[in-house]
């Protein structure tokens, strides 16, 4: 086995640790379900509400996984673990669990609603998962105190919910993309734009992951090495 750890091991460990958080997992499922049921009457609102719940739940779980990992990260670096493999593995593990959850919700939506474009809903859910993981990751890098971190995510998610989605400010919030893709999928291209949504999701994820990596590198102390 090569030194420096493997992304696969990091992903596996992330999934294992997550699987032990039974109560957290229950809330992860309950929160989007409750949001969905609250608006079950209309396909568009119910799907958008579901996506909002998924984004919020997954970013919060990612946040806690990131903070939890940060207590191990310095020790693991000393053992030779490559930081980027740890990060990639954790992000991968979280995206995988989010995707599993998203798949279940696609099945739910397909059975429960008459939506115009089901694959569009799938794309919106996947965008929600990826942007939520990216956002939770970068918040975890900046805000290390758990209560404050959870409130920070609440702040962004709440703003996303109350701001006019067609306004400029809403477009600078992390969860705008999945709503846009969902509107496209449910109400048609006249109402929402797939390409805008995808572009926003990709930009948000890239921005968050790059910012997170940059912060990691910035906070890395340097040390003088003994001459051999």
């Amino acid at each position: 086995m090569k030194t420096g750890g493997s992304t696969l091991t990091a992903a596996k460990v992330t999934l294992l640790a997550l699987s032990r958080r039974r109560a957290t997992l229950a809330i992860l499922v309950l929160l989007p379900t409750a949001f969905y049921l609250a608006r079950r009457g209309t396909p568009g609102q119910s799907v958008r509400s579901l996506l909002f719940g998924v984004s919020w739940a997954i970013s919060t779980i990612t946040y806690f996984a990131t903070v939890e990992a940060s207590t191990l990260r310095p020790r693991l670096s000393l053992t030779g673990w490559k930081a980027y493999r740890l990060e990639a593995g954790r992000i991968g593990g979280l995206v995988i669990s989010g995707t599993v959850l998203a798949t279940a919700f696609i099945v739910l939506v397909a059975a429960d609603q008459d939506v115009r474009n089901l694959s569009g809903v799938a794309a919106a859910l996947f965008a929600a998962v990826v942007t939520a993981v990216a956002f939770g990751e970068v918040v975890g890098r900046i805000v290390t105190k758990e209560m404050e971190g959870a409130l920070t995510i609440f702040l962004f998610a709440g703003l996303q919910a109350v701001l006019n989605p067609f306004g400029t400010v809403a477009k600078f919030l992390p969860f705008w993309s999945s709503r846009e893709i969902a509107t496209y999928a449910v109400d048609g291209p006249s109402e929402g734009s797939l390409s805008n949504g995808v572009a926003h999701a990709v930009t948000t994820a890239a921005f968050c992951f790059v910012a997170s990596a940059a912060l990691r590198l910035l906070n890395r102390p340097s040390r003088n090495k003994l001459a051999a």
Partner: protein
Amino acid sequence: MKTETWLQKFSFELESRGLDPKRRSEVVVETAGFIDESGTEPLEQFGFPSDYAASVISALGETTNPSPPDNPTIMSANQLSKSYRSSSVLSQIDIDLREGQILALIGPNGSGKTTLLKILAGMIQPDHGTVTTSASIGYCPQIGGINPNLRPTEHLQLFGAGFGLDKDQATAEGKRLAGQLDWEITDRMTASELSGGTAQKLSLILAMLGRPDLLLLDEPYQGFDNKSAQRFWELLWTWRDNGGAAIVSSHSEDVLIRADQILELEPTS
């Protein structure tokens, strides 16, 4: 105290003061013979094992530092200082640690022991001064350092992966170290379900897993029972005899006689 326990403790105490194995066994056998023949209690005849060991060492005129000072330097720190929000935590700390040495880091709460260890581990940056080392480092923090939701062997696998150990190798090495600390690893519980002392053992084992050159241990045996604490020192002495080095912070007084070098930190302001 049973004679057997007393003798065992006495032997450890002699070892901790760096008496070579041959002399040690001679002294212990002779002492045992006396106790046997006089038919009395060791405590009555010799007092506490640690005190008697100290007087034996003093009578022998042995130094308590067995590692030759001309061993190569494994880590040096020069004039380290660190402040948090303009209050000074560390001020002008110098360290010269050689291979095969154990340095005890002592001082009251708030004297900067944890900060110093983190600086030495390269986890935080000092405001002034430099740390020079090419050693591989194992670090055991005072709190945290394990994932509450992972089981012991999952930790071993994760940490082992950093060194390139596969799951079986990491588990075998971890179990070997655990055995030396009187702990048989079972995988029924996650770290959060382990007792405080056992979780601490796990954390310690993770620091030693890849046999790094230098161990940085922050209060490593806090929460250990006496026997486990003794096992910890035995493990560390073996480590040192194999050329490993360690810096151990502790509140326990026993660290003073068990280490080769002492660095006392004082609260600065």
